[in-house]
């Protein structure tokens, strides 16, 4: 009988135990949340990422700028068009060219639809972490189907579109896209009201999420929170307003801001952002300019360095691109929002007493994505 190597079990004082909510667990994604707890109170959280590290930054150094879009999208499955947009925006800034207005509007429509697809999944998981298997989780998965169909009609794929390329967009809107999109918007707006009644104002959901994991705005800024987690703590920070890209300059929309900073506020910010996204898509569809959809772009990018920011569903996604004049980037540093959101989860026990049952709720309220963090 071969001797099984039992690695030394570290003896923690005070009856604490180190519970690994690990990669093989109903609620954790592809990573491990190591929680030091005595069963109820959590003393320390350490997030162990790296289970799906594919070294995308190294792959990009061996792909031309156009080819780099495809591995770049594999970084975050739910929100591929934002990653694509950040990379393309950096390339266009270095090249000094501007995509034609019609392409900008089409890009805005894709980005906002992608935000809705990603936010519905995030809200579904937040609900699932508080309840056994709530109907809300399945409603959201079913209700984003019209947008996936629209995306498949427009780009040909349901999530990895590779549709935004340097210089514009790959194809024009198919016929009948506008009517179908307006129908989908009308359907989803009515569904959002149902979500508000059935779940966000659900007494037990509020009991489980209000006042849990409160992050004051000063701490949110100091820890570098991203996106909805930052806006939920009362910080008015939205890259679409700070640095308008695509067609956000011409469209008027509000920023969803909450002040409570707890898990409920983060969910509420996401639902309000979905309302806003619906308005943006409607505006973009209404005054869609005509004209070309692509500008041809040279293969080689002049040497230089640029940092481009895009407001992805999970937060501000930055690409720091260094080019050396060849047709391949010299160095691409991707600052992923989930990489910073995990840090919030690790720092929370230092400022607030967290219960063991709240760890999944907090983890899901930041809507982090292990693939995003691992790159």
């Amino acid at each position, binding site marked *: 009988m071969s001797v099984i190597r039992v690695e030394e079990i570290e003896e923690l004082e005070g009856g604490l135990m180190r519970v690994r909510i690990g990669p093989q667990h109903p609620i954790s994604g592809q990573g491990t949340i190591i929680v030091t707890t005595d069963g109820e109170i959590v003393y320390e959280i350490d997030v162990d990422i*790296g289970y799906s*590290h594919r070294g995308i*930054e*190294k792959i990009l150094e061996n792909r031309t700028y156009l080819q780099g879009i495809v591995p770049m999208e594999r970084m975050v499955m739910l929100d591929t068009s934002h990653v694509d947009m950040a990379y393309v925006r950096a390339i266009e800034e270095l090249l000094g060219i501007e995509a034609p207005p019609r392409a900008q509007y089409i890009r805005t429509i894709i980005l906002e639809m992608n935000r809705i697809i990603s936010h519905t999944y995030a809200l579904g998981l937040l609900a699932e972490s508080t309840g056994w298997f709530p109907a809300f989780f399945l409603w959201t998965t079913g209700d984003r189907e019209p947008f996936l169909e629209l995306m498949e009609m427009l780009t040909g794929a349901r999530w990895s579109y590779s549709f935004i390329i340097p210089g514009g967009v790959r194809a024009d809107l198919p016929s009948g896209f506008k009517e179908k999109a307006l129908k989908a918007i009308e359907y989803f707006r009515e569904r959002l009201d149902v979500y508000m009644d059935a779940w966000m104002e659900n007494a037990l959901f509020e009991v489980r999420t209000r006042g849990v994991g409160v992050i004051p705005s000063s701490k949110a800024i100091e820890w*570098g929170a991203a996106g909805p987690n930052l806006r939920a703590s009362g*910080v008015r920070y939205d890259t679409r307003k700070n640095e308008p890209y695509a067609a956000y300059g011409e469209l008027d929309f509000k920023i969803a801001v909450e002040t409570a900073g707890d898990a409920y506020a983060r969910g509420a910010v996401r639902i309000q952002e979905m309302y806003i996204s619906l308005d943006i898509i409607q505006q973009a569809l209404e005054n869609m300019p005509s004209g070309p959809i692509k500008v041809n772009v040279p293969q080689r990018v002049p040497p230089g360095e640029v*940092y481009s920011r895009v407001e992805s569903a999970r937060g501000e996604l930055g690409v720091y691109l260094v080019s050396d004049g060849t047709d391949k980037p010299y160095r691409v*540093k991707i600052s992923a929002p989930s990489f910073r959101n995990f840090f919030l989860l690790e720092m929370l026990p230092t400022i607030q007493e967290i219960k063991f049952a709240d760890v999944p709720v907090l983890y899901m309220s930041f809507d982090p994505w292990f693939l995003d963090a691992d790159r």
Partner: protein
Amino acid sequence: MEGLSEIKRILIEKFGDNIIEYKIVSPKRIIVKVKSEKVKDIASELKRLDFDMPVSAGGVDYIKKGIFEVFWIIWSSRYNVILILKTEISRDSPEVDSLVNIWKGVQKFERETWELMGINFKGHPKLKRLLLPEDWDYEKEGYPLRKDFSLKPYER
């Protein structure tokens, strides 16, 4: 714009020649290159000037010039501008002060750069394995993000 030039005046007057380059690329971007010894003081000065949210940090390997270029990207809530703080360190002794106790948010970024590029951040509380597998030995395989990292064993 007036805020930005005023920052430049304070930095130049306080640190003089330690700031090698101060470029305002666009109304929303500033690139500051500094000497590596003075990074910590300049960073705390920037923190005092309300550059408070760390967005990213990392390193670039200029193998031809034989230097590593380490950068921190900070956003300021008051001026609503992104500042890229850069320093250069030699390739054979990659050492730089860690800015963790100034901006807490860069802790994981510096840890990742240490692991993938081999730049040692002095004073970093938790330089532990983050992304690479446990049994990754640096002698045989080298640091992945360096330019001299050979991709032969992994290519098709």
